[in-house]
């Protein structure tokens, strides 16, 4: 059809952030050639992506929430709680490793399910609900694990430390989840429904989409992902820390927004979520290599977030005119 001819190139937020990332790399390279030598090595890259795995899994789940027009603040606390409970089950309750992992994931799904029921059925605002459960879950993590559970069994820690092609298992898990998520978000009816819900929940309901059920499923999936992130992290560092997830929910939301999601819902892709995490991780790594004092990290990342989203919103408005 001829109207297709009039379609202009529309830069998505994902592509914008990607180009910004490339630009930052080029600038870094030109300004600091010596640091670049240390930055651009495979070992550094492998360590950056290894440290990203936890955030990536959280961000993938959070992206699903944001697409559906809501969010979950309890994911960081869920990750801490599930990591600690899984560790406690294998170390102190004597469960075999696979059973402990299954138990941990079941707890994760249950916590997400509980969030979902309260939000979708009881209709408590998602911010309030997950703010509450964030407190509950991090409390449970501290009760069960104290500061943390160390010296987890080798058969468990092996899982997270196995290497393949120079990258650790968690990185491969992220690649796998990212690929599946990307296909799922873009090409399945099931996930497509979340875009409708995020865009206009009332209209989605009247189009026969079961909004309540899908919201509960989304919260359950997000909880499951958060638990998985907690277990993977505990396995990699051989310690289940009670505070590993603290503040990570906001990091996940930041990454998703950078990667193209909108708090109004209806927008976002899986690769955008991963790109957002990568963007933040690369900047943090550069600051680390330049030995910038950690106090500055928050300031710089905050500026980047507001700047990136502001540019996007200005461009969008121009386009509508």
């Amino acid at each position: 059809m001829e109207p297709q001819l009039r379609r202009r190139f529309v830069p998505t937020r994902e592509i914008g952030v990607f180009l910004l990332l490339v630009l930052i790399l080029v600038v870094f390279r030109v300004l600091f050639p010596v640091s670049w030598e240390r930055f651009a090595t495979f070992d550094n890259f492998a360590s950056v992506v290894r440290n990203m795995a936890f955030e990536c899994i959280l961000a993938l789940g959070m992206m699903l929430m944001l697409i559906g027009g809501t969010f979950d603040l309890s994911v960081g606390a869920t990750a801490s709680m599930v990591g600690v409970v899984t560790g406690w089950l294998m170390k102190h309750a004597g469960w075999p490793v696979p059973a402990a992992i299954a138990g941990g994931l079941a707890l994760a799904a249950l916590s997400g399910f509980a969030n979902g029921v309260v939000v979708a059925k009881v209709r408590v605002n998602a911010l309030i609900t997950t703010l509450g459960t964030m407190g509950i879950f991090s409390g449970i993590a501290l009760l069960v694990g104290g500061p943390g559970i160390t010296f987890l069994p080798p058969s468990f820690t092996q899982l997270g430390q196995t290497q393949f092609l120079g990258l650790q298992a968690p990185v491969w898990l992220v690649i796998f989840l990212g690929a599946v998520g990307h296909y799922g978000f873009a090409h399945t009816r099931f996930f497509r429904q979340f875009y409708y819900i995020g865009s206009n929940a009332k209209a989605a309901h009247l189009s026969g989409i079961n909004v309540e059920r899908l919201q509960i499923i989304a919260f359950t999936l997000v909880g499951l992902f958060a638990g998985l992130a907690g277990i993977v992290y505990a396995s990699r560092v051989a310690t289940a820390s009670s505070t590993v997830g603290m503040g990570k929910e906001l990091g996940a939301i930041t990454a998703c927004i950078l990667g193209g999601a909108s708090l109004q819902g209806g927008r976002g892709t899986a690769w955008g979520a991963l790109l957002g995490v990568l963007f933040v991780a690369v900047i943090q790594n550069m600051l680390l290599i330049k030995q910038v004092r950690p106090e500055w990290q928050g300031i710089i990342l905050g500026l980047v977030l507001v700047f990136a989203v502001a540019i996007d919103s200005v461009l969008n408005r121009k386009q509508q005119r």
Partner: protein
Amino acid sequence: MREIRKTFAGIEVLKGVDFTVRAGEVHALCGENGAGKSTLMNILAGVHRPDAGEIVLGGRTHAGFASAHAAQHAGVGIVFQERSLFGPLTVAENIFAGRQPVTRWGMVVRRQLHASAAAVLARVAPDISTEATVADLSPAQQQMVEIAKALSLDAKVMIFDEPTAALTDAETRRLFAVIRQLQSQGTGVVYISHRLEEVFGIADRVTVLKDGAWQGTMPVAETTADDLIRLMVGRDVEKFHYGASEAVQPVLLDVRGLSDPTDTGGGKPMLQDISFHARAGEIVGLAGLAGAGRTETALTLFGARPQGAGEIRLGGNRVSIRSPADAIDAGLGYVSEDRKESGLFLDMSVRRNISAARLAKFGGWFFRDTEESGAARDFVAKLRIACRGVEQDTAHLSGGNQQKVLLARWLLANPRVLIVDEPTRGVDVGAKAEVHQLLRAYARQGHAVVVISSDLPEVLRISDRIYVMRAGRIAGEVSGDGANEETVMRLAARDGKN
């Protein structure tokens, strides 16, 4: 307004339009959706700035107003087509939004606020309390608040953009009285409406726009509805009138004794003992005043409101419907009354809007996007939806085209019984006729169509039979020669509420 030009996204929406309103005159502005009426008025009200041209108001020349506030200051008041109220605030706070009477310390003087609000409201809607929360009001009442808000400005020029779309006849009459009052005070009134009866009822002169260009200005007394329609659409519009179908077709939808649950947790049940049926090939109208329970009936059938007593049969089988998903599975479709609020996904493409109610048709875990866009393109062509392609967002389509997208969604879903709530609200004359034709064609394919509309001539024109609702009940049924505005209105307002 002289030689006003405006371009949006490369499309020239106004091509040098002249427009004058005299003091004490009601000047109607007509044209199809997308003709540029609202844009022209938005320029006058300072929402948009013109690319070229000037506005002369009371002897002063402006190159366009910098903001809505500047236009207000210069003496332009507007009642927007889209409501611009703050739902959680009270009526009084809305009427004086941003202009509350305050003390020296910046504290709002509540007593004075409510007194002034009551004074303005008394002119249009004395039954609305200034303390009421706007979100709790019906759409019609909200519209009256919107009008009161504009009146409180004491403007030199008042613009009414489709003010009656949500109003009942009684409210419309009250509005007309207010307009006449403004007129006698020497205010210039601009009146935009798709309802030609209203133009002839209230206006002194009328200007027609088509595709952003001026078509003509003339005294209303010297023109006819047919002339205006010809100017607006550039072609003669056929008149449709359908009699009852000859052969008796099977009953597709049979509703018996439908009522709201008796225990609604506080609110009083609204629907009581609703019984009606619709046959294959038939268009059944559901008429009544605003608040009579027409939309509630549709929503209950569709599973979007809880159902109490009564049974619903589709194609002879009793069905139990607890959600819209159940309703769709059972063979029902519902085109909602407010396309922006509960119909369209505005930030999503035409394609995704059309497929929304029938996603399963295009696959589950392997969604067939090409097939989906093919289907959407078919509908865009068949329904003559004017858009830049199926990937365009629906937010910036005109009202008529948005309505067609919504209709396309349900034609694709292909339900046996299609309920259409306000099929042509805020839609221009040409698109209106097209929508009517589409509904008729859908019925002819052996489906049943139920039309809910506050536009009485519309219901009379397209329905084979009409059920009239009043206060949550079916007040009666009219058909054939017995169906005219008078019989319907008599049933709709028998207890003198009107």
